[in-house]
């Protein structure tokens, strides 16, 4: 049982850093530009497809990962210039519609370009296999690498946001948008940078999971909704909130699925507990979100409503 708990905590952490990479961009776009971007999950999917394509072309996972980054910058910039930029001053409703349209376009385009058969990316030899943790317990090296990469990026973002000029603008932009523009900062450029940064992080997350998941058209959607929950729980515009929200949501999700039925078994008969556990597990994060919002409508670290 302890083994299981340790493994699930690690799995939660791994899912958590992944969610954080996606949520970081989303929360900035929400917070600073006040844009609802349903197409953010698409970037995660596109990142995975890029990694799969480049890895297949170059025959190396590392080149695939590396080449994904400039491609992600290009996609981010194009999206920002062609569509997102025109949505800054529009209502949330318009933003929802336009980005919903983008989701349809992206999903269908991916089907046309890459087909509907899932792609796979070979695991780099350096990171394959697993390491012993304690006793017979093993954990895949690659997942440890994901955790490490995610934490490193989180640390990097922390430094950038708290100790650089652009970070200061980002913080100011998230809370006092009008004042920043009144100070004569080129808001257009700031927005483009923020959106592209978010796109790159999401694409990178997609590229990271490509070796452990098959790459297919639906992969962006399940993640998108979880990311929304993360952003709402953490508080819109807050990178720190996104980090803790992501870890919290991921841990509840991974632990709840396994330990929910076990805990329920203590209070009801096993068959009913199994059934109730299976019903409750996927709903847990949403219940968590509802409870949290009831107590704190602005999320854990949210400053504005």
């Amino acid at each position, binding site marked *: 049982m302890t083994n299981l708990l340790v493994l699930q905590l690690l799995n939660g952490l791994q899912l958590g850093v992944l969610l954080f990479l996606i949520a970081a961009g989303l929360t900035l776009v*929400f917070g600073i530009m*006040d844009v*609802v971007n*349903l197409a953010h999950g698409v970037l995660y999917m596109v990142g995975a497809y890029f990694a799969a394509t480049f890895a297949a072309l170059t025959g190396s996972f590392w080149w695939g990962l590396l080449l994904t980054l400039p491609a992600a910058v290009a996609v981010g910039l194009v999206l920002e210039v062609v*569509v997102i930029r*025109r*949505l800054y001053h*529009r209502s*949330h*409703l*318009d933003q*929802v*519609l*336009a980005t*919903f*349209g*983008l*989701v*349809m*376009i*992206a*999903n*269908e*385009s991916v*089907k*046309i370009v890459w087909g509907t058969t899932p792609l796979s990316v070979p695991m780099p030899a350096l990171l394959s296999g697993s390491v012993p943790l304690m006793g017979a317990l093993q954990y895949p090296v690659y997942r440890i690498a994901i955790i490490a990469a995610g934490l490193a990026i989180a640390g990097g973002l922390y430094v950038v946001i708290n100790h650089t000029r652009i970070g200061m603008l980002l913080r100011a932009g998230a809370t006092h948008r009008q004042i920043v523009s009144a100070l004569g900062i080129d808001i257009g450029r700031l927005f483009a940078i923020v959106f592209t940064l978010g796109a790159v992080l999401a694409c990178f997350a997609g590229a990271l999971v490509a070796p452990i998941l098959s790459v297919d058209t639906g992969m962006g*959607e399940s993640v998108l*909704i979880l990311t*929304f*929950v993360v*952003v*709402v729980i953490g508080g*819109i515009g807050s990178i720190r909130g996104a980090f803790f929200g992501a870890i919290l949501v991921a841990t509840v999700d991974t632990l709840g699925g396994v330990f929910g039925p076990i805990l329920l078994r203590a209070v009801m008969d096993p068959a009913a507990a199994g*059934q109730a556990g*299976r*019903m409750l*597990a*996927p*709903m847990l994060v*949403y*219940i968590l*979100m*509802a409870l949290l*919002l*009831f107590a704190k*409508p*602005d*999320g854990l670290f949210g400053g504005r*409503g």
Partner: protein
Amino acid sequence: MTDAVTQMRTAAPAVSARLKVAVVLFALFALFPPVVVAFDDPFLLLIGTRILAYAIAAMALDLILGYGAMVSFGHAAYLGFGTYAVAILSSYGVHDIGLHILGAVAASALFALLTGAISLRTRGVYFIMITLAFGQMAFFFFTSLSAYGGDDGYGLARRSTLFGTRLLDDDMALYYVTLVVLVALFALCHLIVRSRFGRVLTGIRENPLRMQAIGFAPFRYQLTAFVISGCLTSVAGVFLANQAQFVSPAFMSWHRSGELIVMVVLGGIGTLTGAIGGAVAALLLEEVLGTLTEHWRLWFGVFLVLMVLYSPRGITGLVQQIARARR
């Protein structure tokens, strides 16, 4: 009384024009079955029924989206409550459509009351995402409801009965009954919108602080509207279940919620009639694009983006723009 209310008064001629348009639209719906018979393609009746059902849902969503500025991204959940009310009650031997509607409305009212009370504590982006998350919660609930097929859905052996008869087994009868319900609910929505309640709701949309200052608590009015909208949407679900004779969580996916919003906006928000026209336009576009190309979603997406970027007021706005340019 307030600016908003005077605005409504001055808008009165437009309202009556819209009413006329609605009457014409309903007349067209009523004439559809004979056309189908002429084309000798009875399957069109089922497509027609589906369109009418979605028109009900879109109209119900418009009630809060258009008149209350509440962008609910989880309205597909209520479609689901409607469809599952039919499935669950039927499995217990309750086949009457009136009771199905009653069950759907009761479940929806409860869910809307609970989730609305939480969601309405927030605004803007938060509201959109929270309603989305609650919609997903309902979706996952039915996905794991294995007694009714879970993910796989649940086939209905028979349609609902109407006053104890199996009248609805006939596709044309189902179509006309759906149409009658659509017209009745349109009348109801029209009354709601024009009532004092409706005017307060519009007032809150325009300026919540002022409405609060003169003694209308926005929360209560918005929550009431949210519950009404959810209940009416579930009625559409009852008819969808009968149309498809199959219920599944697919009716509740977040894509479906998005499509409902698309319908409302397509026809122009805050007009009720527009929502109905938007549902017709969106579903026909989907059907026609679907017959033309396998990748219709791509073109639908392109259409959506272009519409938002170049015609903020939906198709109606687009046609008006063109007309104005000609003049």
